């Protein structure tokens, strides 16, 4: 039954072609576990997108406190807080598996940076940034910077003391750049200092602007990997693989 559906779509959309190029592509015989970090990073990125989208269904990016954004503190007394903090608190306490999804997003953020650093380290150690893969390396560098920006913008969103002051420090560091420092500071903060405007700005960057850019870059990155093939362990040449790569258009 599944085969019939597959054949129907394949005759109209060339699924076999996609299959051959993306999923059933060959890798040199010398690949080992070191070569898995790129896929792991991609998997974590997809996970972050999914968990992030779900969190966004309940999160409010507003630093305004209102009569309706009340959180019961550890002392048992309700206190008015910002709507952002109240919505995060609701995710943790009021929604089933909200805490699970938020923690996955939180730890996923840390893990993706670690996996990316391992990936970069492996590429560097094996010299896989050399010809013809220089463009891929450049795309990867930009992806790294964007992932770190994801971390910076996402850190502010809960709008609690730690988020606020960490962002103040980071934006001040940006402001200490000679010549353009003050302009950078005001562009990033959205004003003279980190405030409600910054929260809105960071939320838009974190959920709309950066995902768009990083999806395009990851697409380019993967395209280049498939085009140039995987460089196996340095010093161990797989002749059949090299010949196949050369003969492909």
């Amino acid at each position, binding site marked *: *039954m599944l*085969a*019939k559906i597959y*054949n129907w779509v*394949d*005759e109209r959309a060339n699924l*076999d072609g996609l*299959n*051959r190029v993306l999923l*059933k592509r060959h890798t040199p015989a010398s690949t080992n576990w070191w070569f898995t970090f790129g896929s792991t990073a991609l998997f974590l990125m997809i*996970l972050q997108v*999914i968990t992030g989208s*779900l969190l966004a*269904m*309940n999160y*409010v990016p507003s630093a305004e406190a209102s*009569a*309706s*954004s*009340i959180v019961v503190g550890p002392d048992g007394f*309700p206190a008015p807080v910002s*709507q952002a903090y*109240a*919505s995060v*608190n*609701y*995710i943790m306490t*009021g*929604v*089933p*598996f*909200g805490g*699970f*999804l938020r923690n996955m997003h939180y730890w996923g953020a840390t893990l993706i940076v670690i996996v990316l650093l391992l990936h970069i380290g492996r590429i560097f150690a094996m010299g896989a940034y050399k010809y013809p893969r220089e463009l891929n390396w450049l795309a990867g560098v930009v992806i790294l910077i964007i992932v770190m920006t994801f971390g910076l913008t996402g850190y502010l969103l809960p709008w609690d003391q730690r988020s606020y002051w960490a962002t103040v420090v980071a934006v001040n560091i940006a402001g200490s750049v000679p010549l353009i420092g003050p302009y950078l500071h005001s562009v990033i903060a959205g004003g003279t200092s980190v405030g409600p405007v910054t929260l809105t700005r960071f939320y838009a960057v974190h959920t709309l602007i950066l995902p768009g850019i990083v999806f395009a870059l990851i697409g380019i990155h993967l395209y280049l990997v498939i085009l140039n093939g995987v460089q196996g362990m340095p010093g161990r040449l797989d002749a*059949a693989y090299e010949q*196949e790569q050369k*003969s*492909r258009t």
Partner: protein
Amino acid sequence: MNEAVWIVLGIAICSYLGLGIWLAIRRMQAPIPVLASSAPIPAACSGCPLLQPNIMAMSSAQLNHQTEDERLEPDRAGQPDGGEEPENEGRRRFLTRIIFAIGGVIALVIALPVLTYILAPVLQMSSGDSGKTAELGPVSDFPQDKMVQKTFKAKVDEGWIKGKEVDGTVYVRNLGNNQFLALSATCTHLGCTVNWKPDQNEFVCPCHGGRYTPQGINIPGTPPPKPLARYNAKVTGGKVVIDL
């Protein structure tokens, strides 16, 4: 009412799957022969896959007289094996299946919390008692056997919002003996506010002409599909209070 919807949905899905499984097993056990005529098949056509019974189940590779490998890897067609001996092939298939199975488990572990998270408002809907009440007024406001209209303001929690103000209109009838009939004034047709007409002894909805009896039962032949909703009303401290 919501439980009934889930039960019906569950029965529908299970019966669909059950029917599908039963039909698949039957087809495996009794394949349908293709040739109705008794003309003999020419010798040159023996072994032709196009004459096999299950032509619809054949992949495009078989129909095009290709092997699976030729179809998926035209570059390697005709080259030396490179490890595709039968024993490696079996190993490859097994590992592929295991990887897909583990992937399926991972997807399930992620999908169940995700679906519960998304469907949270549905799960919270049927939990019923919100614990909030609205005060309508002292008992003296409600003379015996007269329909009295009251508006109330209440605060409910919705999502991250605590104490969202809602207001409503309720019709209350003092039945005597500290019993009260409290009907919601929201028409069950499309949500307009109904009016009590004492001279007609009916509730009339101004939007589409829906009518209800004095007990709030919808009169057949008019638009509303169900009776007006009832609040639990009781007397607390000399005041009439309804549960929200």
